């Protein structure tokens, strides 16, 4: 058993860490979030130059054939630096779904990998989707024309995407279809998420879909795989955020004085910090273990659910403790603490909430 990153992965982490430490400070990030675009073209290009935009795609699709541990190695740092650029959205989810389309979509995929286009996966619905068979968006045949009807929520980078890949029920199957966001019947309302990412609600009112744009007519399995990979990446982001919170909170407790002594000297604070470290250690261990499973193709849906649930509940407890120990200053927008909490909350809520996954685990057998 070996749960360590390779020397190459450590080098990649080192370079990415340096890039983000210099070019993605908390202040620089704030300016990006306040700006009009979903992301900084500068940083996106730099990630591209490091090969990260090509990393997760298979070599036959023009990618670098990166593994699960490659993705986790970098995603942990994206979380640590609160990166808002749509890596999970456009590369892992949108790109992963687009790549199912084969040669026909190759030019667009090349543009995604080159960093000149974004794509989005439109999957979540209503208050959050867990079980894909409950999707309400449908692809139906009306007088010989395929039409897409429904409403998708929390579409990451939805307003910036050149193409939307939409999950929909088609009879008793699940299909993934490519939709032009400018097509008739598509309405997009975009917003900034609590964690600084951009997302959108997208409505499809009888949108005509060409048969060639059905990327996958029986997509249940590939979709589950794409979501599993994205879950791994997002949980790695959450664990990166947890590490940052643990560090900054213990440092703060060592310097902040009340009643004439550093608050970390009070046993209630010390024990809360100890619980944060225990929670982080558990989340970190489960992330690396699940990554090693995924690396060999042995991660079952249940393993992904276990990780998602733990990253959410342990991350939330760390984030809430971090705010509490920082006191009033922890409540301010000025400090990164709350931004880390919000990154964790966003991860916890999307792709099936903690409670959804906990009940799934409990009802599904060992």
């Amino acid at each position, binding site marked *: 058993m070996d749960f360590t990153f390779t020397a190459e992965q450590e080098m990649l982490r080192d370079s990415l860490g340096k890039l983000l430490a210099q070019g993605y400070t908390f202040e620089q990030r704030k300016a990006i979030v306040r700006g009009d675009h979903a992301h900084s073209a500068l940083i996106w290009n730099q990630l591209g130059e490091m090969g990260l935009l090509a990393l997760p795609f298979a070599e036959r699709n023009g990618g670098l054939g990166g593994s699960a541990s490659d993705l986790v190695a970098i995603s942990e740092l994206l979380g640590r630096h609160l990166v808002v650029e749509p890596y999970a959205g456009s590369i892992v989810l949108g790109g992963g779904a687009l790549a199912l389309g084969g040669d026909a979509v190759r030019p667009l995929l090349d543009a995604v990998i080159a960093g000149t286009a974004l794509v989005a996966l439109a999957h979540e619905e209503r208050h959050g989707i867990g079980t894909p068979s409950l999707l309400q968006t449908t692809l139906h045949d009306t007088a010989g024309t395929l039409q897409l009807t429904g409403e998708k929520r929390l579409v990451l980078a939805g307003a910036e995407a050149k193409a939307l890949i939409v999950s929909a029920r088609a009879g008793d199957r699940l299909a993934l279809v490519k939709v032009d966001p400018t097509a008739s019947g598509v309405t997009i309302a975009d917003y900034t998420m609590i964690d600084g990412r951009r997302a959108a609600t997208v409505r499809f009112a009888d949108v005509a879909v060409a048969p060639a744009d059905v990327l996958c007519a029986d997509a249940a399995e590939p979709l589950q795989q794409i979501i599993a990979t994205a879950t791994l990446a997002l949980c790695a982001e959450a664990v990166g955020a947890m590490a940052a919170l643990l560090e900054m909170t213990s440092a703060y407790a060592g310097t902040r004085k009340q009643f004439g002594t550093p608050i970390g000297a009070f046993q209630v604070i010390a024990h809360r910090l100890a619980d944060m470290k225990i929670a982080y250690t558990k989340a970190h261990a489960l992330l690396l273990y699940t990554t090693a499973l995924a690396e060999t193709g042995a991660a079952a849906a249940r393993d992904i659910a276990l990780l998602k649930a733990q990253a959410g509940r342990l991350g939330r407890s760390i984030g809430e403790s971090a705010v509490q120990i920082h006191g009033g200053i922890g409540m301010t927008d000025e400090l990164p603490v709350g931004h880390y909490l919000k990154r964790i909350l966003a991860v916890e809520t999307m792709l099936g909430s903690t409670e959804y996954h906990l009940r799934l*685990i409990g009802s599904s057998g060992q």
Partner: protein
Amino acid sequence: MDIAFSPELEAFRREVAEFLDTAPTPEIREAGRKTTSVFAPFEAVMAWHKLLHARGWAAPAWPKQYGGTGWSVEQRYIFAEEYWRCDLPPLLPNGLQMVGPLLMELGSEEQKAKYLPGILAGEDYWTQGYSEPGAGSDLAALQCSAVADGDDYIINGQKIWTTLAHKANRMFMLVRTSTDGKKQQGISFLLLDRVDYPGMEIRPIIGLDGIPEQCEVFFDNVRVPQSARVGAENDGWSVAKALLKHERGGSANSPAMYRRLETIRAAASGAPSPHGGTLLDDPVFQRDLGELEAEVAAYAAFEKLVISRHPMAADPSIPSMNKVISSELTQRISVVMTRVAGVEALPLQHEALTVGSNVAPLGSDLELVAMPYYLNSRATTIYAGTNEVQRDLIARTLPTA
């Protein structure tokens, strides 16, 4: 990263499984089913220890030169998984995990030759004489004294929470040999060849579970040879700390927890929910069971990272984190067991719980053990350094600016 088990390891798993499926006697299997503590029913588990020793498998974690198996960490984990699959009683930890490894590190050649074979073979059971009525979490406050007299020490005082002292034939203990300087500086570590020296009296203590697992031991001018000391006089505190360190090689507790979860799940599928249907179909129970399983999964990942020597394992707070996580998880599992048993957890069933009593339990095995296990498990967050002390130690390893 690499997690795959090789075909050789799968062959090893079959070899282990075959032995564990056939070697234990019915009494040993009964003891496994009726284990409600870290300490399994004494006579049966010592008999099992001897059988495992005959196969060469009594001490998976010991180095080969002392009679250990020389197994890789993967092999040790597989052994633990198969062991728990069979519901076998865990070997008592005091000799194999505590005093044995300590002697390997700090004992004299004479002490090693004299004591290690008996520990390995399961001939000796060592009770631990650490705590005193006035020295629990603050162990260094201990007062039980040993005064040099010729080649001997004369011991006077009291020890408490000496587990199974009434079944033991040997004892390791901390005594005060000096009252000068800091309280940690006047402590010595002694090995007692017998627990029936003139002047020694052992009184069992009935626990919450109704079982006399713990004892008090009184010393009234008990004369023991000074050759029984490990390390230098007044240096027993560092000996005791070295003993604690032996946990750091890593544990394999999670397979036992997974086995408990399987038992819970099986029992819940047949247990009626007060809301109708089965407990396993109850959404609230599903959610809580899911959370418990997620916690066990995280702990299993933690154990695997530690035994595979991931850089994380070098963190000095690993033994304390391991203790806190495993003890609190044990308690949560025991709570869910009592929840599944419901009112069937309430009858006192001491006779049915006694190995060899031939008294049938009122209901299932889970219903028989759930409450004694829950009650006994209250001790897990108290013994071996309370979890409050462990959290102090963990907090001390955090960087402060």
